[in-house]
């Protein structure tokens, strides 16, 4: 069944590539044999859709992106049916060992997870780390609970049941949220843990960011987490969250960007949650594109490898990063761009560096 799906998916991709590149052939002879396919995370989908379209317009190279989820992206790369995959959670050592070749991670932008709520009379809700643990673990069940009122002294919270809304499908958004929760709460770490889907102590599930956002918008008394790009575009009210320095921070592109100001390891494999920067919004994270370091496999042409790397070095540079901001993702800080460039310059084809 799985194989069949993969074959079907590959067939669809192939079919779509072929028809597309033949359209372009007349106007752009150089790239007629190269088209790039990728698949994976849905969290950065709006950015990738926009960036891929712009790149195709600019260079004539056809790019296809399938938003099939991080897990699907990793599987597709493993089966070598895409040029690169996309994921919101970096591959751990065990998952990397499962792959048939050495994998590199290229961060493309920074996203965040906001805590959205629906309380008609309330504006500017503040949530401390303790509040988040209590709400999402079901220890507080009323909005006017003393503990919540303490963090929001200037607001009159209603006497109303709290309904927690979470994702019912597996998601990188859940991963980032649960990674943050594990960092701020020992109880969460031992009882729930982190992952793309969880054993939720409380609340109801809805599918995708649209599902969670729709449920929150339609139901008074709800609270839940949503990808920031979606929340910003939909203008849903969201809370200020206490960061590691005790400050309450409203998520916006600056505060999300600030979360990557600290030390980033050379392979960029780091979760940005609970950043030590005093201005950082604490529930933020990179999203990555992943590919094989040795680009010569499965009869891939050198041109294919070169075009793939060219595209990746474009997506981390200024033009593409400006596109990311248009669709509400925070751009990579300059030093991370430099780190990503370093990784790209180490990529090889038959052992020889691809970028010169």
């Amino acid at each position, binding site marked *: *069944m799985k194989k069949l799906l993969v074959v079907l998916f590959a067939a669809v991709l192939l079919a779509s590539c072929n028809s597309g590149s033949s359209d372009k052939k007349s106007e752009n002879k150089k790239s007629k044999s190269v088209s790039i396919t990728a698949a994976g995370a849905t969290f950065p989908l709006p950015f990738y859709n926009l960036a891929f379209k712009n790149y195709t317009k600019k260079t004539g190279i056809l790019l296809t992106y399938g938003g099939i989820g*991080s897990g699907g992206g990793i599987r597709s790369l493993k089966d070598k049916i895409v040029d690169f995959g996309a994921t919101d959670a970096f591959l751990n050592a065990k998952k990397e060992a499962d792959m048939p070749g050495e994998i590199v991670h290229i961060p493309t932008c920074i996203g965040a997870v906001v805590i959205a709520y629906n309380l008609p009379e309330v504006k500017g809700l503040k949530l401390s780390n303790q509040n988040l643990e209590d709400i999402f673990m079901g220890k507080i069940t009323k909005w006017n609970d003393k503990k919540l009122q303490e963090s929001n002294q200037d607001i009159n919270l209603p006497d109303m049941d709290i309904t927690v809304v979470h994702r*019912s499908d*597996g*998601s990188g958004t859940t991963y980032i949220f649960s990674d943050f929760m594990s960092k701020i709460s020992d109880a969460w770490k031992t009882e729930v843990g982190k992952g793309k889907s*969880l*054993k*939720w102590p409380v609340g*109801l*599930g809805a599918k995708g960011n649209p599902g969670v956002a729709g449920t929150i918008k339609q139901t008074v008394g709800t609270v839940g987490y949503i990808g920031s790009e979606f929340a910003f575009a939909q203008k849903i009210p969201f809370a200020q969250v206490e960061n590691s320095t005790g400050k309450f921070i409203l998520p916006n592109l600056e505060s999300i960007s600030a979360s990557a100001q600290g030390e980033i390891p050379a392979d960029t494999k780091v979760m940005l949650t609970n950043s030590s920067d005093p201005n950082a919004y604490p529930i933020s994270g990179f999203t990555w594109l992943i590919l094989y370091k040795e680009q010569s496999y499965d009869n891939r042409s050198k041109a294919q490898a070169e075009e793939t790397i060219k595209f990746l070095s474009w997506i981390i540079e200024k033009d593409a990063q400006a596109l990311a901001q248009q669709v509400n993702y925070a751009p990579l800080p300059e030093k991370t761009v430099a780190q990503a460039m370093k990784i790209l310059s180490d990529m090889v084809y038959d052992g020889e560096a691809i970028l010169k």
Partner: protein
Amino acid sequence: MWNSEKITKTLLFLASLIIVLITSGMVLSLMNGAIPVFKEFGINFIFSAEWNPTEGREDYGALSFIAGTLITSVIAIFICFPLAFSTSLFVGEYYRGTRLAKIVGTMVDMLAGIPSIVYGLWGFYVLRPLIVDLGFNSQGFGIFTAGIILAIMIIPYATSISTEIIKMVPNNLKEAAYSLGATRKDVILSVIIPNARSGIFTSYILAFGRALGETMAVTMLIGNTNLIPKSIFDTGNTMASVIANQFGEADGLKLSALIAIGLLLFVITGLINGVGKLLIKARL
């Protein structure tokens, strides 16, 4: 050589063979996919309500989903029965052949043609606020809400088959009853129902089977909480709904667990149809 008789026979045989192959192929691939999870948890997979997909503490059990599926479907059948049964008597007996019966019959059939997602949307925007206003629970999602939507969705299946069965009750039996001075009610209770009983029963078995597997509308309304519901107003999850929600990011043991749930759903649907057939035989 190849006369038309032989060609027809071969074509029919091939067509049926393909159906048999597809069905057995599906069962086999489901069984194959379910092996890892049954190896890991054994028969406990069916009786455990634990569902923990977190890496490092994976633990899967199907009970909460089995419970959710059965409870929503039973609620649906209970709500569906009085409506569907009265409608089928209305269309098939009382107003049989009239313009009004035709309109009602067409309306009921139209219900069957509405896509599941539209039922879900209607439930989300109309039914759910109603449940909140009535004070059953604070957010409107849950087993009961899903059951109501399911009931509406299965009404056409139960109604149209029952109607046909009721229409098939021989006229001379009814006429005989009338000539003995029976009222319409007497005819229904002592002629139509005893005669059409097994057919009507089958229509509800079919409707129940349909409710078991319904996915989209249920997943939008049930709340997707992977626990055994504590009351019918609590949130829960069904087998079809958890598969639809979680297979996208699933791999390894979790994927196997989802496939095993698919297999169980297949088995449960098969069992209920089988039991239904046995009951019909026993009563006749």
